């Protein structure tokens, strides 16, 4: 058996018995799918809730035409009865009535209330202008889409009424509406769902960093902290074998974490009601293999970096401090890709993780990434990994590292 394999086997045995390391390996992969699952469901909920709209109205009986129009547009009307004797058909509601409505919104009985004054029909008949009041609370994010739908529907009615009035006077309604703005909303729930799908590559990349870290730290800084490094180095073995052995052990965990994250994410996606958003996400086994080939080198890259950094650290605490900074690295490609609007360039493929992130984003979006970029990104990650391991070996040969 090769010496590096002896070391890998020992580190793996050691790690499997380490509950903390195992917990990190098993817990992290579950977090991502949970986030995705709940975000998806909340988007579906918001989309559904907007369709299912109930409008509380004060003074329903004063504007039967408007109320009919609203219910025909699919808005359910709930008549709000005020106990303060406010329904005694006053022309204008008193301040106490309005306060009462406000209270109802503040105590969350309603998110919004439409108030129709008693003289509505009268003023309409005289072709005069009437104020209706739409009370709402703008800080309630979920209610906003409903409020704007109510407002929009009322606007339609107003336009219709205005057109009728003009026609009654022999004027073409188009005279007063020289321009019609038609809004077409592209930022549909589908678009938002797509953005969430875009998080999956991110989770996979982070998994590469999180799942191997415990073992990488234990095998480097841990070895120094518990003073087991010197006895190990007294054996007639190459330092390179030791570093490679430890690296492979950490990469094994990292790779397993990747696989778990992928498997669980794909399972979670199957549970999400994607069809309700008009989205279809079907992933073939070819794509799964593609994602694996793209991401597995990251397991080696992430752990090579961690081993390299871990060797400088004298203790777990040191190593954790250094590596918590490095754990921010996987975020970089995500942020870059959010703000980046340019096309893909060669240097992006050369940057570890950024290249992989772009490839993964392609696969998740259903495109097959260009083979050339794929190869460039893979080669770049391998070269960087080997550089880190070579560096780690050089550091490991220093006398200072052994005895301090």
């Amino acid at each position, binding site marked *: 058996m090769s010496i590096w394999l002896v070391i890998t086997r*020992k580190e793996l045995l050691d790690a499997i018995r380490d509950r903390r390391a195992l917990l990190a390996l098993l817990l992290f992969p579950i977090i991502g799918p949970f986030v995705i699952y709940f975000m998806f469901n909340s988007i579906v909920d918001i989309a559904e809730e907007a369709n299912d709209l109930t409008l509380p109205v004060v003074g329903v009986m004063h504007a039967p035409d408007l109320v009919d129009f609203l219910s025909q547009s699919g808005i359910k009307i709930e008549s709000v009865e005020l106990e303060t004797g406010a329904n005694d058909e006053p022309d204008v509601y008193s301040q106490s009535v309005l306060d009462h409505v406000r209270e109802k919104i503040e105590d969350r009985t309603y998110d919004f209330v439409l108030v129709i004054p008693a003289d509505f029909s009268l003023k309409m008949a005289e072709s005069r202008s009437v104020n209706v009041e739409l009370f709402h609370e703008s800080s309630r994010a979920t209610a906003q889409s409903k409020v704007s739908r109510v407002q929009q529907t009322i606007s339609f009615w107003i336009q219709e009424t205005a057109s009728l009035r003009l026609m009654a006077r022999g004027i073409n309604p188009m005279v007063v509406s020289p321009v019609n703005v038609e809004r077409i909303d592209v930022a549909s729930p589908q678009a938002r769902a797509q953005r969430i799908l875009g998080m999956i590559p991110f989770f996979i990349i982070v998994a590469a960093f999180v799942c191997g870290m415990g073992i990488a730290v234990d095998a480097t800084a841990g070895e120094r902290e518990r003073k087991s490094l010197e006895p190990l180095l*007294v054996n007639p073995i190459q330092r390179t074998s030791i570093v490679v052995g430890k690296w492979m052990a950490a990469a094994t965990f990292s790779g397993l974490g990747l696989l778990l994250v992928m498997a669980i994410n794909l399972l979670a996606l199957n549970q999400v009601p994607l069809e309700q958003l008009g989205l279809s996400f079907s992933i073939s086994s070819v794509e799964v293999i593609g994602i694996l080939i793209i991401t597995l080198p990251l397991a080696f890259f992430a752990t090579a970096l961690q081993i390299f950094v871990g060797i400088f650290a004298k203790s777990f605490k040191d190593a954790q401090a250094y590596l918590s900074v490095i754990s921010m690295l996987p975020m970089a490609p995500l942020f870059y890709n959010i703000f980046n609007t340019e096309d893909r360039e060669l240097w992006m493929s050369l940057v570890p993780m950024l290249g992989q992130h772009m490839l993964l984003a392609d696969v998740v979006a259903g495109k097959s990434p260009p083979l050339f970029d794929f190869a460039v990104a893979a080669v770049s990650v391998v070269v960087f990994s080997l550089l880190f391991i070579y560096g780690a070996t050089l550091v490991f040969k220093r*006398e200072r590292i052994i005895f301090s």
Partner: protein
Amino acid sequence: MINVQNLHKQFKGIQAVNGVSFTARDGAITGLLGHNGAGKSTSLRILYGLLKADSGSAEIDGINVMEQPQRAQEIIGVMTDAHGLYPRLTAREHIEYFAHLRRLDKTLITSRVNQLIKQLAMEEIADRRAEGYSQGEKMKVCLARSLVHDPQNIIMDEPTNGLDVMTTRSVRTILQDLKQQNKCILLSSHIMQEISALCDEVIVISDGQVLMQGGLDELLESTGESDLEEAFMAITRSGK
């Protein structure tokens, strides 16, 4: 057989070892005696190939440690002054790990590990994890893993430091056994009793220099003292 000639080693301007020369022969226990910081550990670390000497030579059975550190490491067993164990591995797994690192044969490993466990009376802890071992139990594991390849030369840095009487005695018995097998044993200590109870030869080292090497009797004779402690004090005084 260990032969050290004129070793020099400097750390950041401090001369830790300043011309150390000595020999340790087969079939004898040689003790390196000196204060803390006298240069004992540094000399030993050069000898087992973890430190590079600035000048001088160190040979083990004729193999130059500076030129062929790995070949030299193959024929020595080392108990370093760091006694770190892996808390989640058992005693048996510790010994097996080092046996595998030394490329021993599979069948040989099993018999050798069992033999060491028996010899060091470690049956009780053999399959228990190292977490919670007593100082003595830890020391036994360290000793066992450094002897697993049955080396001809054995180097030990403060082997009985912090051990209770029982364990100290069993370590002594093992060292006497090894001596009977004609092994070359070199150990360092700052405890006079330890040296006088175990060693055939004593090397007195102070401020990175060897002040005297000889048998116990020779040391006492040359200083005219009756016990080693007094002799040691006399030698280090005259050395300065």
